[in-house]
């Protein structure tokens, strides 16, 4: 049975996800997924991710490749290129099975997306340069604070007196963190402060696209418990984080790929 690959060529990581479907309407079968660091060569990263996802299966099984994400146009094996926002919407809709609002925090950009009842993008807002707040920003802070990235979420939950990061400029925000450190603020409080301010900025974007009571949180940062808590507390919303939250764009691309393939045959 032919496989469809959704490949999300992000700036930080490249994710590949394989799906198959006998016929439109039939149940989907997930044939595998994998994630690798993007590095400088999009094709290399994509192939690596694809091979891991195939887990022994042959490349020839792949009938259609839908590329999304930052490097989508550089994926030579692509059949179609779709923006990560459209695929994020599609992927989330598949998981939610209803219209709603999605927050996608990637390593470079943060996006708020409102989805229609048919899984299309209704409206969206991307973070601009003067808005510190993406995966990369947290990663840097973590390194500076000498905290392994995977512990960030946990530590942030332990904060007693979150120390807000007020600056909007990422550069100044980094300086602010450094100055908090110089001022002797605890690592936990700084981390939670970062999550809080990220949540506030996300909130501003979400309001622009029309946020209702619920929120689907996707992207690698969604793994950070502290960030989820911050969103729930600051924005007073119910936050749901799908399993494999970092694969949602790849999934969306794969689903749209299936459609095109079906139309092609």
């Amino acid at each position, binding site marked *: 049975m032919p496989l469809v690959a959704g490949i999300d060529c992000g*700036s930080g990581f490249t994710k590949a996800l394989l799906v198959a479907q006998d016929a439109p309407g039939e149940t989907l079968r997930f044939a595998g997924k994998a994630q690798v660091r993007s590095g400088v060569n*999009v094709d290399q990263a994509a192939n690596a991710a694809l091979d891991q996802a195939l887990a022994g299966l042959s490349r020839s099984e792949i009938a259609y490749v839908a590329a999304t994400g930052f490097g989508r146009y550089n994926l030579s094996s692509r059949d179609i290129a779709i923006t990560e926002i459209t695929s994020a919407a599609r992927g989330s809709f598949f998981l939610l099975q209803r219209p709603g609002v999605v927050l996608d925090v990637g390593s470079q950009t943060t996006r708020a997306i409102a989805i229609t009842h048919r899984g299309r993008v209704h409206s969206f807002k991307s973070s601009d340069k003067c808005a510190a707040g993406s995966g*990369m920003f947290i990663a840097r802070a973590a390194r500076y604070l000498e905290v392994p990235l995977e512990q960030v979420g946990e530590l942030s939950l332990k904060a007693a007196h979150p120390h807000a990061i007020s600056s909007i400029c*990422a*550069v*100044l925000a980094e300086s602010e963190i450094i100055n908090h450190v*110089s001022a002797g603020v605890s690592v936990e409080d700084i981390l939670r402060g970062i999550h809080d301010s990220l949540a506030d900025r996300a909130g501003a974007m979400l309001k622009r696209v029309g946020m209702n009571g619920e929120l689907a949180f996707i992207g690698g940062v969604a793994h950070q418990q502290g960030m989820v808590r911050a969103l729930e507390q600051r924005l007073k919303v119910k936050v749901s984080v799908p399993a494999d939250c970092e694969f949602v764009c790849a999934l969306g691309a794969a689903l749209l790929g299936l459609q095109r393939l079906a139309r092609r045959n």
Partner: protein
Amino acid sequence: MRIAVGVDVGSTQSKAVLMGDDGQGIKILSRALVDTGANVTRAAQSAFDQCCRNAGIPPQDVGFIVGTGYGRYKITFGNAQMTEISCHARGAHFLCPGTRTVIDMGGQDSKAISVGPSGEVLDFVMNDKCAAGTGRFLANAAEVMGISLDEIGPLSLRASHPVKIATVCTVFVESDILSYLAQGKRAEDIMGGVHLAIAKRTLSLARRLTIEPEITMTGGVARNTGMVQALETVLGQKLHVSPDAHFMGAVGAGLFALEKLGESFESSVWREHASSCRN
């Protein structure tokens, strides 16, 4: 012999320099360099201890300690503080007496300083909010490229067609770099472009002063050969780069500390700072 120490607590690294004055002349007796990390006071302390050890001089023999850099007020054992602007000027004047202009790319700011004949600050300018162009700018660029900070300088020197970098906004330059990577541009050309962008940026910063030769570059970035060369190209003249460039703040602080010991320098800055940090 009078012994004094200057401690420069920077955003990424803390440096300490132990200096001695035997009446014949002032000498740097030892240096120490540690990562600042999340505990500033500890970093400052260990830098201080290390450089005492390196010099084989017991801490109690140190007559006076001056702290500088962003963490200066966290130096619990310090006797006084000075800003790194005064210290870099002073240090540069000591190591390169002809210095009239200092260019320093620190982790948080980049600055240009006009220095008087006796090492005093005549005028200084620092980067605008929206044009950091600082050491961190380079560090982040290196990170996005997945290259170590020490490699980017030499790499940039191999650029044949440096890319155009429109912005000195650290956040946007990252996506610029990613786009260029996506376009398949060579790493050396991207780094070349980044270095050129900062060099030009720094030049226009320095232009706000009257740029007098000789020019001395201080701070950690001075170790980046690519940056030095890029600066020399846009400035159209050679830069002094002392092997102690990244200790310059600490050296300046050490010199102020020595002066304080000798009481040759009586200024209310001292009353101010000294009183402020005793209690």
